[in-house]
């Protein structure tokens, strides 16, 4: 099968590099085995297992680059893929922004593999679905959900001596529970690298409780409210904002971090003092590969926002050279500092407010201010005197994460949350935020 060990992939990389006649050569070998089970209407709808591998070769003659891939590893196939890449490179136009392959990097291993996750089988997946389905049938509720797990390897090498190999595992579970009459809906998401940190029964119970509590939601007026945002409600908003941290975009005047006259807001205190966001490939909760798969630059721990100040921007190799600074690796994870407080404690400390389970269909309305719009979904509740009083109808919001991270009153304990439309592994805390801007009501349950 598809999960190759370091010895096997090193041999492939060495063969490819030896075959290449180009000025430089970059190889990546990757493979994955992904299993899933999908359920809806209290029954399994689909289940599958997909396996895939590829060797990708990128070569350059001067400033001309070519890329080709193949999924066979015999000598003949490897020669074919190298020649294909070289043929494409000869045909390609010169790229004035071409940057040479990186020099040898030191990749410090990160703990991205769990044997327990790699051992997940169809029974495990079916049981994850069954917990939700059976509990919902008992409670006259309707479950829909998706469990997916993956085991993968990634190897990178180049003609300057770069080499890295690691295995990765991960799982994601989402479950939506609705009442039979469609008047209540609850949701849960759990992500884990290690299957022993995943409890399907606990997850299903959260969605069930939210569904039962959300029936007969009241309408309250849109406006600015103190909100307690669960991690799934803020993770995508923060993820959207991170695209503005690109140094080139900022220097060119096309980011919320650009200033009048061409300067950037690097060093400015743009957020609340409590806001600390960093990336760290070795974080034990959300470890990621210690290299950036695009540039092969070794990842490091980087404080992106420190005590509310913009502390670092992302520099591509090209822009770093132009600006005379060190290029950076693209972050693979985002970690936001929190406290030990639970969401329940945040609720208990709130006189009047709104609890938001998750946000949905978030889109950038204005890149100048990072104004985002989207909606709440699957569990929105009114809080009074430290207690959830009643469910309320969903809202549309128009809010900037920059403003949101300025209006923080209290932060809770970070939890692991995988991205949906944002490609980061994240550890994000629940937050209490004042003046969050809800602009209209939605009838959707």
């Amino acid at each position, binding site marked *: 099968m598809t999960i190759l060990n370091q010895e096997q992939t090193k041999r492939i990389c060495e063969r490819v590099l030896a075959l290449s006649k180009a000025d430089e050569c970059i190889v990546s070998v990757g493979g994955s085995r992904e299993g899933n089970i999908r359920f809806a209407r209290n029954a399994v709808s*689909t289940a599958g297992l997909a396996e895939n591998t*590829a060797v990708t070769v990128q070569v350059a003659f001067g400033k001309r680059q070519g890329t080709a891939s193949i999924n066979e590893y015999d000598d003949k196939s490897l020669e074919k893929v190298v020649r294909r890449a070289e043929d494409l490179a000869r045909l390609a136009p010169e*790229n004035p922004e071409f940057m040479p392959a990186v020099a040898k990097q030191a990749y410090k291993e990160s703990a991205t593999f769990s044997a327990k996750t790699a051992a997940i089988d169809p029974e495990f997946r079916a049981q994850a679905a069954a917990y939700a389905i059976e509990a919902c049938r008992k409670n006259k509720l309707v479950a829909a959900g998706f469990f997916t797990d993956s085991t993968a390897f990634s190897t990178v090498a180049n003609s300057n001596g770069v080499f890295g190999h690691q295995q990765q595992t991960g799982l994601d579970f989402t479950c939506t529970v609705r009442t039979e009459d469609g008047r209540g809906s609850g949701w849960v998401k759990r992500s884990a690298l290690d299957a022993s940190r995943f409890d399907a029964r606990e997850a299903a119970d959260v969605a069930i409780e939210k569904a039962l509590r959300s029936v007969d939601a009241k309408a309250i007026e849109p406006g600015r409210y103190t909100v307690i945002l669960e991690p799934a409600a803020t993770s995508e908003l923060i993820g959207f904002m991170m695209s503005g941290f690109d140094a080139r975009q900022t220097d060119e005047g096309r980011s919320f971090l650009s200033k009048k006259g061409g300067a950037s807001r690097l060093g400015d205190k743009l957020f609340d003092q409590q806001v600390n966001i960093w990336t760290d490939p070795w974080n034990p909760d959300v470890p990621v590969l210690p290299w950036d798969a695009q540039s092969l630059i070794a990842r490091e721990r980087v404080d992106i926002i420190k005590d509310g100040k913009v502390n670092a921007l992302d520099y591509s190799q090209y822009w770093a050279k132009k600006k005379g600074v060190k290029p950076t690796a693209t972050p693979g994870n985002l970690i936001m500092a929190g406290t030990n407080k639970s969401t329940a404690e945040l609720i208990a400390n709130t006189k009047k407010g709104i609890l938001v389970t998750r946000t949905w269909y978030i889109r950038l309305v204005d890149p100048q201010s990072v104004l985002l719009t989207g909606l709440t979904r699957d569990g929105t509740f009114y809080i009074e005197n430290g207690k959830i009083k009643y469910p309320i109808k969903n809202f549309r919001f128009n809010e900037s994460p920059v403003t949101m991270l300025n209006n923080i009153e209290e932060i809770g304990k970070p939890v692991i949350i995988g991205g949906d439309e944002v490609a980061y592994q994240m550890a994000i805390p629940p937050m209490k935020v004042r003046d969050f801007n809800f602009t209209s009501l939605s009838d959707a349950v």
Partner: protein
Amino acid sequence: MERRTFIKIGAGTAGAMLVPVFGNAIAAEELLNPMATSAKKALADTAMDAARKAGASYCDVRIGRYLNQYITTRDLNVQGVTNTESSGVGVRVIAAGAYGFAATNAMTPDAVANAARQAVAIAKANARLQTEPVVLAPVKGVGEVAWATPFKRDWRSVPVKDKAEMLIAANKAGLDAGASFMTANLFQINQQKYFASTDGSYIDQDIHRLWAPINATAVDKASGKFRSRAGLAPPVGMGYEWFDVKPEHKVRAAGGVATLYRGGYDIVEEARNAGRQARAKLSAKSVDPGKYDLVLAPENLFLTIHESVGHPTELDRVLGYEANYAGTSFCTLDKWESKTFKFGSLIVNFSGEKTTPGSLGAVGYDDEGVPTKRWDIVRDGVLVNYQATRDQAHIIGEKESHGCSYADSWSNVQFQRMPNVSLAAGKAPLTPDEMVKDVKKGIYILGRGSYSIDQQRYNFQFGGQLYFEIKDGKIGQMLEDVAYQSNTQDFWNACTAICDERDWRMSGSFFDGKGQPSQVSAVSHGSSTTRFNGINVINTGRKIA
């Protein structure tokens, strides 16, 4: 949901290796070499035979070869050229009343037979939790047939150099006209899809699609303000002749504020206009929020149709199969059964179809081997039907499927996807300029902007690319910071005028996402310029610290 796939694809900044691909990168000379139909038939027969022997009551086999080419340019540089290929076989079966699916990229008899047996085993395992057996609407086997996108110029045979030069010329035109930065991309898709089923169909299809999105950004460094204007031209289901523009392909927008395209595209002219208008946006008037009569060009309305009509009338959403991801729908079965649910005003008529030449959804047969057709979804403002696949047709009393089954890859299972969903043209003669004459206080909106809608498709907020004030029957100054908010049913009931057939044209969504694991599909949506009275407009301008 209109997913952000394009944003991810377009985000690469240097080198083809950075572009996420739907397959393996291949050399251009291999693109024009399809697998023999007889070999595909033999493989399909092997899979179906193995499935039957393992206990399947039904089996379909999809043998796919998906060829894509992406070219990305920024300003005067080509940043990446990537050819990709993905080939393999997907086998879907029904056994013990349940579905099973398995796929393999090994195109050998042993591998496809194994996949078929694996699919049967999965079906039998799933049957344990099944509440009711799968019921398929009948499809008469069509024997050995073929269908291809009608095109005059094959994108695969056009030299990469010519394409890159065209994109660079567009970028240069935009920069010369006032843009500070330009991007132009070219997405080219060829899906070679072979379908066979135990109903007796062997269908060979060759499908082509193109999209050339551009984007102009103007920056005023003194004020720190920046604004962008994306292209207004649609993605299409046709060949490279899309770029052989003739005068009759150009459509003048109301008041002459833009040039629009139908049947052919002048990307350089469009880029020049985009550069000029991106610069103009920097000094456009910020809108006063309030109620306006909106005049929406098809280049804006298509995505509103997609989100507020296309998605809520998907029967799998209505039934709850998407509840955990894209959501359910307000168009519940009781509303359809009542035969009186007022989806829109009397002049609102929507149909679904996968037959319009040049559209993204046009195919001869869907991914269940069902011949494509046209049908009404909303007639005279009333919800009359949904979009269904073979296993859903009986739920709404239909005797045959609507042909709405689609999978984006041989390795993914097919399921219900949106066809082209379009608003019929108005019956009375009316041009966009004539429509504007009747508007006292309104806004004319062109192009797709920021789009967001709730999971049951009630509450939406949509933007655009270009906004022009309409005052006392005349188009006036450019506006900025505009978004319109409404509830789907209120919005379509506020539809008061639709321009006639002369103005009808299609735009489309190239990367529409749905399902878990998520799959993308492409569909077109047609309309004429349409007016909606008294719609809430908000001002989206904000200042941050």
